[in-house]
């Protein structure tokens, strides 16, 4: 007779054994709820929305026609007012992404290579602090700061630089009666609001770069500029790509900031909001929301083509 060392098997014990011996089963049970959520509620409703972009509104009755057609996309792409909206939004998203990248990189670089322990925690706090307050509060605060009688114009006046502010406001298209009602002001608020979303992924990629790589590069004769181009930048690119997808897509989809700050021209987010709400043209709203998806997909293909993910 063989003697086993096992204590008596209770139910819980048997369940544990079952899961231990069949790890696939446990994984399956853990993944089913999130997959259902992702598949049905999240992706399902998204596809449903996209499906509507292939339907159309009967111009006469205002009724939805459940018939496959590309008419809505034709309307979107041939009406100058609509293409203006798309171009305006994409240009703003590009400008905001570029500005966020330029501001975020030095901050992330400094945090990754020159801070440790408590100092780094403090910097994390500083970066994340704005996210603790309401988005709306920050947007309206942005408008007040940029207003005609706001802090910024006061500051320019104190520095005897009012002429500079006036010159900025006189720029065609970008300018306006005040910063708060110009595209330039909108750009400033967008950049401010989305900055943390650029800093954090950048920091994540830079934190993984050992300092010794930078020293090795210098040791092998590379001047700081070469080290940046050949070592730091290629290793930071996945973070830049991730961060830029955040800032780019968040700007493409936002409908609050263009309403609160800047000139009255519409943005994609606003069009989606208006078309499915007040205008009741769900197919056009759906077609508008396809635009960011297409733009982001093209952008991802482009960065992959450029070898951005080789270092992953």
């Amino acid at each position, binding site marked *: 007779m063989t003697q086993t060392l096992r204590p008596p098997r209770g139910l819980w014990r048997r369940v544990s054994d079952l899961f231990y011996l069949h790890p696939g089963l446990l994984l399956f049970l853990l993944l089913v709820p999130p997959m259902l959520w992702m598949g049905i509620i999240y992706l399902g409703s998204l596809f449903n929305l996209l499906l509507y972009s292939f339907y159309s509104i009967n111009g006469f009755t205002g009724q939805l026609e459940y018939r496959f057609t590309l008419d809505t996309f034709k309307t979107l792409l041939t009406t100058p007012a609509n293409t203006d909206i798309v171009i305006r939004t994409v240009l703003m998203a590009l400008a905001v992404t570029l500005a966020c990248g330029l501001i975020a990189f030095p901050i992330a670089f400094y945090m990754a290579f020159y801070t440790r322990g408590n100092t780094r925690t403090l910097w994390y706090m500083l970066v994340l602090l704005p996210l603790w307050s309401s988005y709306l509060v920050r947007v309206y605060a942005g408008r007040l700061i940029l207003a005609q009688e706001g802090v910024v114009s006061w500051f320019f006046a104190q520095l005897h630089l009012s002429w500079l502010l006036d010159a900025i406001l006189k720029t065609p298209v970008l300018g306006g009666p005040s910063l708060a009602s110009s595209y330039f002001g909108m750009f400033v608020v967008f950049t401010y609001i989305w900055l943390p979303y650029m800093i954090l992924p950048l920091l994540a990629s830079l934190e993984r770069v050992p300092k*010794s790589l930078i020293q090795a590069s*210098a*040791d092998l*004769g590379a001047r700081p500029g070469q080290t940046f181009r050949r*070592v730091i930048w290629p290793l930071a690119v996945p973070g830049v790509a991730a961060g830029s997808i955040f800032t780019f897509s968040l700007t493409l989809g936002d409908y609050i900031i263009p309403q609160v700050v800047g000139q009255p021209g519409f943005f994609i987010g606003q069009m989606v909001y208006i078309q499915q709400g007040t205008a009741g043209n769900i197919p056009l709203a759906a077609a508008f929301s396809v635009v960011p998806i297409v733009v982001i997909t093209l952008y991802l293909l482009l960065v992959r083509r450029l070898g951005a993910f080789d270092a992953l």
Partner: protein
Amino acid sequence: MQTAVQLINLTCIFGNVRAVDRVNLEVYSGEFFSMLGPSGSGKTTCLRLIGGFEAPSSGQIVLFGQDASRLPPYARDVNTVFQDYALFPHMSVLDNVAYALMVRGVPRAERHRRAGEMLELVKLSGMEHRRPSQLSGGQRQRVALARALINQPRLLLLDEPLGALDLKLREEMQIELKALQRSLGITFIYVTHDQGEALSMSDRVAVFNHGQIEQLDTPKGLYEHPQTEFVARFVGSANILEGRLIGLGEGRFALRPERVRLVAGSEPGAHRLVGRLLDVHYLGSQTRYEVQVEGGRITALAPSQEEILPAGSVVTLSWDATSLRPLADGIPARPEASV
């Protein structure tokens, strides 16, 4: 002999710690020079100062007759093999090795040809297109070596390059490194905490302790004539005897375990001690005996015998008077800087 590196009163202070404390030394051209010491002894900081990765707080670094104290790493004719190898993860092995040529603007075909030659030298042909992450530790180590040597530097700094390798591989690499150094004629400065490694490869060794050099000597000089208790204990192992010894005067003396003879029984006399065998460690070719004598414990190391004495036996230890090495006082710990 030509001087490759000269350190003059070199000091490096981090916060309130003197990592390197008024170090003076000269490394000659073509020499295999080791810096040996426990962690925190300042040996790595000293190497990093020579490489240009840290700035000295005071003192001077002279490289090949030129003051290099304030030169950035890329302006020094020195290359480094880093402890973690620091290979560029986004480049192939070939591009890693060719990096130094690339930043100098050598055309692609030419630098790849020369990088291929370097890989041949370190026996890694066929690995050109792999990524560093696809290599074993020993292979990465060789890539790091090839990359540092491609510029044909006059001085190569190695920061515990074999630390991450297993014993067998480490011994192989020690032999290869030494052979490479001889054939290339480059000055090597080698940082290690492994005294065996330092002794077997080096022409001269500087033993670091508390940011200062305790002793600078040939491997044989260090082992046979340790000048302080720290060196005697750190390089090999040593029995430290204290007191008045016949013919040698008063003081502290180091006695290597293998210079202690051990016989069974009690036979007192001059340069002898009678004790009781505490413990016997069989090490294969040798056997180590721990003996309790009056006032302390003495270790003896002897070739293994067929018959091993049992613990508890009474034994007599003896040695030649010439085996006793008088010791001077070492460097006291100085964690606080007096700036």
